Every structure is written in C-alpha cells, then in structure tokens.
C-alpha cells in the first residue's frame, strides 16, 4: 500500500489511535499529506473519519501515536500550530454576529489589525460570492450562504493546512455542486494542503489528488481516485466504492492478461495480472448491460454474456437498477428508456453482458 510518506509531508499521522468507550475508532499506522496535496478521506458513517480529522486538526488528543506537522511531533493541542490550520465542519457554525465579524474573528484572535482583517475578510467573502452578505446577521443566511461564509472564514486565515469535514453534505444538490465548483477553483489557485472528509465519491474523486478509504477505523486503501474507485483492494472497499456485484470465482485458464474464471457454472473472462487461483470478480452496475434472452451479440468486445432471470427492478430518477439472478446476483444500472424498450420486469429471462475489462479482480 502506498502510504504517501514523503519527506515533504506537511501533516502526518504516526501510529494514531482513538478509542471511544473501549472501542478503537481510529487506528492509522501512518498517513501523510504532502504539501499542496488534497487528500480525500472517504468511508461509510462511523468509520472514524471525523475523529481522524479532529486529531489531525489538533482538536482532539490521540489515545495513542501522534500527529506531526512539517516533520515535527506535536504535543497535544498546540495553539501555535492550530493557528496555521483551518477547519470547516458540516454545519456552518457561525457566531451570532454579522457575517463580516464572523470572517474576521479568527484573524482577530491572531492579532491581525482591523484594516487588514476587513480587507482579507471582504476579499474571501467575494471569492466565495457572498460579499454582499457582509453586513447581514449570520442568523439570516440560508444553508448554502452560511457554508460559503464558513469557507470564506477558513480561507481568510490563509491556512497552511485546511481540514474539511463533510462540508457540503447538508446542502441540496445544486447548491452543493455550485460550492464544490468554487472550492475546487480556490484549491487549485491556492494549492492549500487539504484533508477532505466525505462520504460522497464524486466529491472525493473531483477534489482529491489521492483518496483514502477508511472503514472500521483503518485506512483500507490509499491511492489515486481512478485506482481506488476502479481497482478496489478488498471486498469492503469494493462495496463502499459502489461495486454491487462481487462474486468469488476460480481461475480455469490464462492467456497473457486475459483470465478465464468460473463462478456457479458460468465462465467469466476478465483482465488481470498475477498468479492467483481464486479471485473476487467485481462489477460496477453501470458497466453491466441487460439484453433480451434471444438477443445476439453485436459488439465483439463484450466477452461476457450470462443468462439469468430478473429478480428485482428498482426505478430511480432517470435510471433503473436491475438485479439479475445468474446463479449469483448481478446488478446492472440501465436507463429507464432501455428498461421500457426491453420490457424488463421481475421474472423475465435476460442476458447480462459486460466487457472483460469491466471486471475487476481481487485475488483471494
């Protein structure tokens, strides 16, 4: 596993442990964030992401191990180092005073003079498109406005390290998209070293230079977004990153990179290197198609055609999720248009198809 441990690490966790009532909620042997890097930490609820972030932000003392800042060990909640960081939480958590005073508050704590405070606050409010709210009371803002102010408040501190804890998860989709756009632009421009905790894959893939998948308090995979989402390291990571078909299979033949596996009497062709004999075949629902039972292959790159019976159809927005029983469960995501055209419904005989390259193998 790539731990990302480099000499240029801005922030690092060494043997970091957090316990809650006898339960270990964070257990991270090593994790580092390089200067200027955006590290996205994803994971299901209760994975320990927020606790890890609070420890990295020096807001919570570790129960074991330590956090180092620019290679130097930190001792507890050092004010001097906390003042070089900024944190944005899921809730905007604005103070009951005008917006401008909110953005200035952290600067005032650092003894920044009034004129400079105001200049910086207005600049960053402007950068997040909420300059016109400067004199408004923080209590009168909408959720999206408040979170923009919260981001401006963090950036106004010109932090060396920025820690974001699910900053957009309480917002509606269009608002979230707009703020994510603005944040992405600011991050590219400032190259602020950032740790972003989120459970949103798209957010992680979009903003993160690297993605760490945290499950049960441990970092289970760390790598580039394409790697983590395309080639999950284990079954739990696969399930978390949205792979809905995971089936154990035996390798029965190999030809160069092409591997033929057998699962429940079906032969599956996949691409994978290595000398393993058993593997988990992982398929993302959007990589699986469903065709009528008698349909002939038209695309020769589709190597896998498995007959089965539709077990369940769930219509969601513009898409539909189709579960097919092929001896094991295969989940496909198809458009509602093709669902209607093919007349797919529960009990129908169909063929599921997918490319050899779509199947990701996790050696067992």
């Amino acid at each position, binding site marked *: 596993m790539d731990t990302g441990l480099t000499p240029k690490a801005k922030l690092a966790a060494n043997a970091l442990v957090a316990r809650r009532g006898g339960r270990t909620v964070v257990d991270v042997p090593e994790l580092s964030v390089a200067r200027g890097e955006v590290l996205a930490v994803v994971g299901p609820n209760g994975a320990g992401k927020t606790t890890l972030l609070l420890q990295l932000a020096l807001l919570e003392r570790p129960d074991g191990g330590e956090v180092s800042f620019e290679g130097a060990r930190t001792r507890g909640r050092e004010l001097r180092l906390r003042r070089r960081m900024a944190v944005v939480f899921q809730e905007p958590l604005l*103070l009951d005073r005008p917006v401008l005073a909110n953005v200035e508050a952290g600067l005032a*704590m650092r*003894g920044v003079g009034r004129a400079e405070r105001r200049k910086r606050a207005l600049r960053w409010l402007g950068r997040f498109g909420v300059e016109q709210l400067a004199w408004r009371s923080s209590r009168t803002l909408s959720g999206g406005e408040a979170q923009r102010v919260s981001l401006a408040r963090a950036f106004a501190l010109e932090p060396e390290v920025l820690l974001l804890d699910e900053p957009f998860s309480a917002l509606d989709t269009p608002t979230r998209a707009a703020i994510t756009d603005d944040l992405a632009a600011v991050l590219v421009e400032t190259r602020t070293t950032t740790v972003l905790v989120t459970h949103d894959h798209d957010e992680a893939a979009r903003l993160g230079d690297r993605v760490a998948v945290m499950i049960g308090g441990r970092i289970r995979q760390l790598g580039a977004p394409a790697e983590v989402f395309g080639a999950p390291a284990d079954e739990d990571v696969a399930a978390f990153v949205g792979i809905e078909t995971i089936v154990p299979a035996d390798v029965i033949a190999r030809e160069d990179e092409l591997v033929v596996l057998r699962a429940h009497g079906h032969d599956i062709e996949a691409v994978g290197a290595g000398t393993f004999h058993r593997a988990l075949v992982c398929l993302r629902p959007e990589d699986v198609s469903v065709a009528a039972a008698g349909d002939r292959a038209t695309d020769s790159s589709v190597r896998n055609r498995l007959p089965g019976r539709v077990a369940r159809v769930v219509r969601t927005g513009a898409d539909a999720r189709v579960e097919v029983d092929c001896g094991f469960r295969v989940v496909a995501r198809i458009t509602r248009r093709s669902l209607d055209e093919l007349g797919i419904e529960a009990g129908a005989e169909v063929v599921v198809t997918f490319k050899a390259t779509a199947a990701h193998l996790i050696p067992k």
Partner: protein
Amino acid sequence: MDLVWEGLREAVDLLVHNKHGVYEIAWRSVYVSGLATAIALVLGVGAGAVLAFKRFPGRVVALALVNTGMGLPPVVVGLVIAILLWRSGPLGELHWIYTPRAMIIAQAIIATPVITGFTAASLASLNPHLRLQVYALGASRLQMLWILLQEVRLPLLAAIMAGFGAAISEVGASVMVGGNIAGQTRVLTGAVLLEQSKGRFGEALALGIILLTMMVVVNVLFTWVQLGIHRDAGAAHEPEGGGRPLQPWTRG
C-alpha cells in the same frame, strides 16, 4: 389608600429634603449590591463555565447545589457570615463584622449561585460543536470563553439583572452582618425594616418606593442594552459603525 398616598408624599419629601440621609442610604445600596454583583459575576461566570464544559466527578451534585443556591435563604447566609466574622469567630481578626465589606460578601454569596446557574444553563445550551469550531479558528482557552460568553450575552445580561435583583432586595443577611447602623451600614432594605418596626409606615413605604424605582431604572437600562444587542446581531449593520469593539484581546 391613605397610607399609599402618604407614602408617595413622604417619598417626595424624603427626596426633596434628603431626610434621614436618604441619598446616602440609596447610594450605599447601589454601591454594596453593585460590588457584590460584580464579584458574583466573576465567580459565577467562571463556575458556570466549568459546570457547563468540564466533566468531573461530583458535577451533578455541584449542579444541584447551584440550583439550590439560586434560592439560598439570605438569613442563613447572614448567619454563617456573621459566625465567621464574629469578633471571636475564625475570621474575627479582620474586624469586618458590621461593615459594608461584610454585607458585600453576604450579598455576593447570595448572587453568585444565581449567576452561576444562568451562565451554566446558557453555555450548555450552545451547539456543542461551536466550541470545536471556535478552537479551530485558533482561539486560546480565554478567547474561547470570551467568544462563547458573547454568544450567550442575552441570557448573561438576564443573569446579571437577576443577581443584582437578589442582592439589592435581600434584607436578612445585610442586617445580620451589617448591623443596620445609620451612616455606616444602613441600606434601603434595612431602612424600610427599621421604619416599619417603629410604626412609621409612611416613611417605610417611601423608602420602598425609592428602592423599587431604582430597581426599575437599573433593569430598564439593562433591557435597553439587551435589545440593542439583539438589534445589532439581527439587522443590517452599517459599514462605518460596523466593527464593534467586542474583542479586548485583539492585540494578542
């Protein structure tokens, strides 16, 4: 009804001619209770913050004691202070019995639980994540407390009003430890008590009216400040008058 009219007439007469040194008595009331409230504010805000934020063994007992203390019987406080300050008592060496100092101590003890209780309740009602956010903004412990106290400034003002009200309106403790000595330790409540015991209802009522008027004036002032704060935080803020000097620690 005659008695009330007589009282009002007497009150005007007292004020106009400064009979019985009424101005001095009124001033002593404000001075003693004001100082007691100031001491109670420092102690109460500190204790309230500890009760709201720290988890320690005996915290629940402490909270229950504070809640009891919010209705502390002044005569019991007076008795305990009197025993402590009595010439032969453990603190008799100080020679504070029958001085305004003794009264300030007694009234501070009466007002402290009131302010502690209000402070603890209002700080505890804040979003717990707000503390984390304030720390994350780079606050020291003192800056954190200062910011959070500003967040609860309205209930805090109510606490000060309640504390001052409890101090200036009590009579038992002040008379027991102050002695109700004319020109030295007589305050308005003690004066009312004395005039009433002499059967001079008119003068007693007049002093009572003066006491009530003073309390109304003080509370109107505080309420006015409270509403001002409310408006400040709630409405548009002019750019020029914008930066309120709310941060005494800005220099660092």
